[in-house]
């Protein structure tokens, strides 16, 4: 008999808890009271589970309602952390080279590649996809470049390259380390190619860390 009374009390507490949630108040002490009795029997536990479920739905709805505020906060965060420089990957690498007193010739020699291609890289007559992700990660490592910047700027460069009308026309620019000679026509293939490059670059950069 007392068990029946208690389960009725539990259900009353549950109703009260749900009513409060509907008013926008999470009375966690009520949830806590239900939790303390959940081990008495399966029926008690079922009531507690209902309360937990009600709370889950309440907070999911709240999260939806508060999404505009969170979006605003995220935008502010992005603005705060925004990269002020408008460097491309080549300029970024060159700026880190300058700090070490290196040139593209030094980098190409270190890679075992032909240093005469340095001029073409400097004049931006070069495709990033002609440097393998692994070699790009090596260059970044030697130059102590920020791997996050390298990934970000590489992606921006690859996107710009594939969007350019000159894409695929620079096949005569070759280096000893060149592993890529693809000029995919399909947009999807280009996107896949970029993502594949990024994936290999991320792995190689992580290995370098």
């Amino acid at each position, binding site marked *: 008999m007392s068990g029946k009374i208690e389960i009725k009390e539990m259900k009353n507490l549950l109703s009260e808890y749900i009513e409060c949630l509907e008013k926008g108040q999470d009375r966690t002490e009520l949830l806590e009271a239900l939790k303390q009795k959940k081990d008495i029997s399966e029926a008690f536990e079922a009531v507690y589970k209902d309360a937990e479920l009600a709370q*889950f739905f309440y907070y*999911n709805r709240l999260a939806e309602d508060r*999404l505009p505020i*969170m979006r605003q906060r*995220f935008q502010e965060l992005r603005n705060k952390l925004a990269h002020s420089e408008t460097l491309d990957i080549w300029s970024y690498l060159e700026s880190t080279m300058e700090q070490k007193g290196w040139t593209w010739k030094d980098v190409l020699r270190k890679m075992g590649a032909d240093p005469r291609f340095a001029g073409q890289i400097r004049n931006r007559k070069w495709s990033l996809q002609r440097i393998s992700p692994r070699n790009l990660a090596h260059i970044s490592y030697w130059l102590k470049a920020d*791997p996050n910047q390298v*990934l970000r700027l590489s992606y921006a460069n690859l996107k710009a390259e594939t969007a350019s009308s000159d894409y695929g026309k620079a096949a005569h620019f070759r280096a000893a380390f060149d592993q890529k000679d693809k000029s995919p026509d399909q947009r999807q293939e280009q996107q896949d190619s970029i*993502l594949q490059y*990024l994936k290999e670059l991320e792995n190689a950069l992580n290995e370098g860390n």
Partner: protein
Amino acid sequence: MAIDEGLILRAKAQDPEALNEVAEYLMKRLPPFLKSKFHNLSYADAEDATMEVLEKFLKDPISIRAKNITSLFAWAKKVGINYLIDLTKSSELKNQSLSPVNREGHEIDLPLVDRDYQEKLAQIEEKIAVSSTLQGALDILSPTDKYIVYEHHLADRSLKAIAEDLEMTIDAVKQRKKRALHTIKEILNSQGITYNSLP
């Protein structure tokens, strides 16, 4: 390559659309999850934890090994939970200690224990000594460290908010707070006062 793998990769490379998509996913799901794990903390704390997760993602995505949305959410839950555990710990620390001095450096909150008068008097004198030593210890700290200790432990402000005030990273603020509390503890110990609640 799976679709969500491409999404995570693009977000790590700071592609604006991918970043928004990943952020939206986390902003919808992470606060309710964290709130359900920490009943005693407010929903605003769960939202702060989510912003902490997003900040970590924006600052150093390469260090995050997650390759798909499921593993990213698992990582986010871990970071969020750790943030809230730290928040809970610092709140407990605040409640346990440093109460003898308020922000202005006076007003001692004495424990009211029903013992005889002499014992109570001895306790009051000890508290005053602690208070005085504690104030002395705080005065030794650099202005920045003192600001962090006051704001965090006495004014109950989050490390994130303090970091923003000082234009420092949260890690730097945490490090300074740790060092400052260590200094205070050493000074108190040197005076024969033990404050076990200090880390």
